[in-house]
C-alpha cells in the first residue's frame, strides 16, 4: 500500500517536472530585436552590453544593432515613417531628446505607448517629461546631459580662487572670476563659438524656460530667461574672457590645449576632457552657473537621448521587455557602462551603486559622478517643443548685431521671434 502510494507520488512529481519544463519552453522568448543607433564609442557598445545581458537569460533572442550617424538615423526614420512603409523599420530607435516631440507629434501612432509598461517614477523627472505627449510616455530614458562647470584648478588657484568659490555661483560672478583669471594667467575663462546655442540652452533650462512655452507656442520676445541669457552672452564676449572657437573640434581643442580655464557643458564631455592625459589631476567640476533671475537653479542639461519602440515593429513586445529588464531594472548594467564608457544614465536607483561613488584621480579625487547624480534631480522639467534647432538658427541670425551693439536685446528678440514664426508658420 505504502509502495503504491510512493509510486503515485513519484509519477505525480515526474509529471509536474515534465509539464513545468514544457511550460517553460513554450514561454521562452525568441526573436530578433533590431536597433538603430549612433555613436561607436558610446551608444553602440552600451547597447551591445545590454543585448549580451538580455541574451544570457533569453538565449533565443538575437540582436541586430545598426550603427548610423545621428543625422542618418533621423533621415531614415523620416523616410520610413513618411512613406508609410513599416517593412524597413527597426524595433528600437535612438532619438535625441531635443527632437523627441518632433517625431511624437509628426507621426502619431508610430511609437509604442509605454506608460504602463515601464516604471517611470524611477527615472529623472525632466527626462520623462520630454517624452510625454498628452499624458502618455513613449520612450525609455537613457543618457543624461546633466551639465557642470568643468574647470582647471591650477589656473583658478593662480587667480586666487578655491573650489568653494565656484559652486553655486551666478553667471555674473562667473564673468567676474573670468576677468581675474584672464588678468593673472592670460588664459581665457571659457571657449565657445559665437554662433553656438549650446550654452544658451543650458542657461535657459536652468531657469526652467525654453524657446517655447508649455503649449508649444513661440516664446522669445517675452522670455526673461532668454533675455538674461542674451545679456550674459554679450557680457562674456565684451569682457574679453572668451576664446572664440568655430565648430566642435576647435571648441574641444581649446580646453585640451589648456587655452581656456573652464568649460560649461554636458557630462558626456568627460571622455574628451580626460583624453588629454597631461592635464590629469588639474581638473574639477562645479555646479552649473545660474542666471541672475528668480527661479533659476544651479543645474541644467545639454543634449542626451532616449530609446523608443516602434508601434508596428515585428518584435515590439520583446523589445519593450528587453528595455524594461535592462534599462529600467539592471543596476549593475549602469555601473558597467559608467565605468567603461562614462555614460551617466537617468535611472535613479542605479546611482547608489559603487561606480557612481568612485573617486576620480583625473578630477583630483572628486567623486564627480556622485555630484552629477545629485544635480540630475534638480534639473527643471520643460517642454522642448518641436522646433528647438529652428529656434536656435533664428536666434543666431540676430546675435551678430547684438554682439556689435547695433540693436538692443529687446529688438533682437522681437526680430528673432518674427523670423521663427515665419519659418514654422505659427
Amino acid at each position: 500500500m505504502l509502495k503504491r502510494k510512493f509510486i503515485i507520488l513519484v509519477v505525480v512529481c515526474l509529471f509536474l517536472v515534465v509539464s513545468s519544463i514544457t511550460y517553460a519552453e513554450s514561454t521562452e522568448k525568441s526573436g530578433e530585436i533590431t536597433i538603430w543607433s549612433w555613436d561607436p564609442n558610446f551608444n553602440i557598445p552600451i547597447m551591445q552590453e545590454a543585448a549580451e545581458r538580455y541574451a544570457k537569460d533569453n538565449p533565443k533572442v538575437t540582436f541586430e544593432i545598426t550603427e548610423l550617424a545621428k543625422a542618418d538615423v533621423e533621415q531614415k526614420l523620416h523616410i520610413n515613417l513618411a512613406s508609410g512603409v513599416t517593412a524597413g523599420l527597426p524595433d528600437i530607435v535612438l532619438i535625441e531628446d531635443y527632437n523627441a516631440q518632433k517625431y511624437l507629434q509628426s507621426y502619431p501612432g508610430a511609437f509604442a505607448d509605454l506608460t504602463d509598461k515601464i516604471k517611470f517614477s524611477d527615472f529623472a523627472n525632466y527626462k520623462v517629461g520630454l517624452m510625454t505627449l498628452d499624458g502618455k510616455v513613449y520612450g525609455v530614458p537613457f543618457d543624461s546631459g546633466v551639465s557642470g562647470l568643468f574647470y582647471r584648478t591650477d589656473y583658478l588657484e593662480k587667480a586666487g580662487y578655491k573650489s568653494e568659490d565656484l559652486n553655486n555661483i551666478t553667471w555674473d560672478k562667473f564673468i567676474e572670476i573670468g576677468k581675474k583669471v584672464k588678468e593673472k594667467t592670460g588664459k581665457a575663462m571659457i571657449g565657445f563659438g559665437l554662433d553656438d546655442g549650446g550654452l544658451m540652452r543650458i542657461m535657459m533650462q536652468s531657469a526652467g524656460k525654453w524657446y517655447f512655452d508649455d503649449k508649444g507656442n513661440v516664446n522669445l520676445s517675452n522670455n526673461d530667461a532668454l533675455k538674461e541669457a542674451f545679456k550674459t552672452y554679450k557680457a562674456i564676449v565684451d569682457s574679453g574672457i572668451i576664446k572664440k572657437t568655430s565648430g566642435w573640434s576647435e571648441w574641444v581643442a581649446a580646453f585640451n590645449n589648456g587655452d581656456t580655464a573652464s568649460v560649461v557643458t554636458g557630462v558626456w564631455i568627460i571622455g574628451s576632457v580626460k583624453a588629454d592625459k597631461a592635464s590629469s589631476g588639474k581638473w574639477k567640476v562645479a555646479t552649473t552657473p545660474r542666471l541672475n533671475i528668480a527661479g533659476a537653479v544651479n543645474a541644467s542639461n545639454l543634449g542626451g537621448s532616449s530609446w523608443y519602440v516602434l508601434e508596428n515593429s515585428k518584435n515590439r513586445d520583446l523589445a519593450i521587455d528587453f528595455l524594461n529588464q535592462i534599462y529600467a531594472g539592471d543596476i549593475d548594467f549602469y555601473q558597467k557602462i559608467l565605468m567603461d564608457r562614462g555614460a551617466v544614465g537617468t535611472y535613479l536607483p542605479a546611482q547608489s551603486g559603487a561606480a557612481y561613488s568612485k573617486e576620480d584621480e583625473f578630477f583630483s579625487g572628486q567623486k564627480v559622478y556622485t555630484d552629477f547624480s545629485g544635480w540630475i534631480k534638480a534639473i527643471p522639467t520643460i517642454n522642448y517643443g518641436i522646433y528647438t534647432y529652428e529656434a536656435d538658427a533664428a536666434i543666431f541670425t540676430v546675435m551678430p548685431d547684438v554682439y556689435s551693439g547695433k540693436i538692443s536685446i529687446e529688438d533682437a528678440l522681437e526680430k528673432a521671434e518674427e523670423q521663427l514664426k515665419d519659418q514654422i508658420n505659427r
Partner: protein
Amino acid sequence: MKKNYSINRILVYVFLVFTFIVSVFPFYWMVAGMTNSAVDVIKGKMTFGNQMLSNITTLFTTYNMVRILLNSLKVTGFTVLGILIVSSMAAYGFQIYSSPAREKVYGLIILFMMVPFIALMIPLFRLIVKMHLLNTHSGLVLTSIASVFIIFFLRQSFKAFPYEIIQAARVDGAGEFRIFFSIFIPSMKSSYAAAAIYSFMASWNAYLWPLIILQTDKQKTVTLMISSMSSAYFPEWGVIMTAIVIATLPIIIVFFGFQKYFVQGMLGSSLKQ
C-alpha cells in the same frame, strides 16, 4: 621682351605651386591624421605621429572592414558594368536610329536630370519595398544603372562616330548587336573609360540612396561606415582618418589608372579620320 616672358613664367609657377598646395593639403592632413591619436588631431597636430598601427588595429577590430569594402566593391562593380551596358546602348540608340519621336523622348529623359533626387526618394523607396529589394545590394544597383547623365555624356561623344562605318558594316551583313559590340565599342574605348571612371566615382561615393535602402551593418558600404564613425560625443579622429584613407585608395587607383582615357574622353572622340 625675354625678361618679361620669364617674369610671367615665374608668376605662373608661383600660382601653380599655390594651387598645388591648396589642393594637396587636405590629402596630406588626412594621411597625417591617420598616424595621430584623436586628441592630437583635435589639437591640430600637422606632423606625422606614431599611432598608425593602433588606429588600423582599432579600425579592423571594431568594424568588419573587409566585408564593408567588399560590399562597396560589389555594388560599384555591378553598377559600373550595368551603366556601361544599359546607358551606352540607350545613348547608341538615340544617336544611330532615327525616329520622329526620338528628340522628344530624349528631351524628356534629359528633363529628368533636373528633378532633384530628394523629390524621387519616397516613391522610389516605396517601389523598392514593393519589389522586396529593401536592404539588398540589387536595390542599389538596379536603381542606378539607367544613368541620365551617362546617356547624355555618351551620346555627345557618340556624335563623332561616322555613321558610314555602320552602314558599311550593314552592307557586309553584320547584325546590329555585332556592329555595336565588335565595331562600335572598340573604337569608342576612351569614351567608355571616361564613363566608367565617372560612374565608378559616383557609385563609390554614393551616400543618400544607400543610406535609405540599406538597413543592417552586414550590407553597409564604406561611405555609410565613415559617416557613422564621426557621430559621437568623442569621435576617434585618427581611426576615422584611417578609414578615409582606405576608402580613398580605390578612387585614386582607378583615376590614375585611367587618367589618359579620362582626359581623352572628356575632350572628345579619339577616332581619327
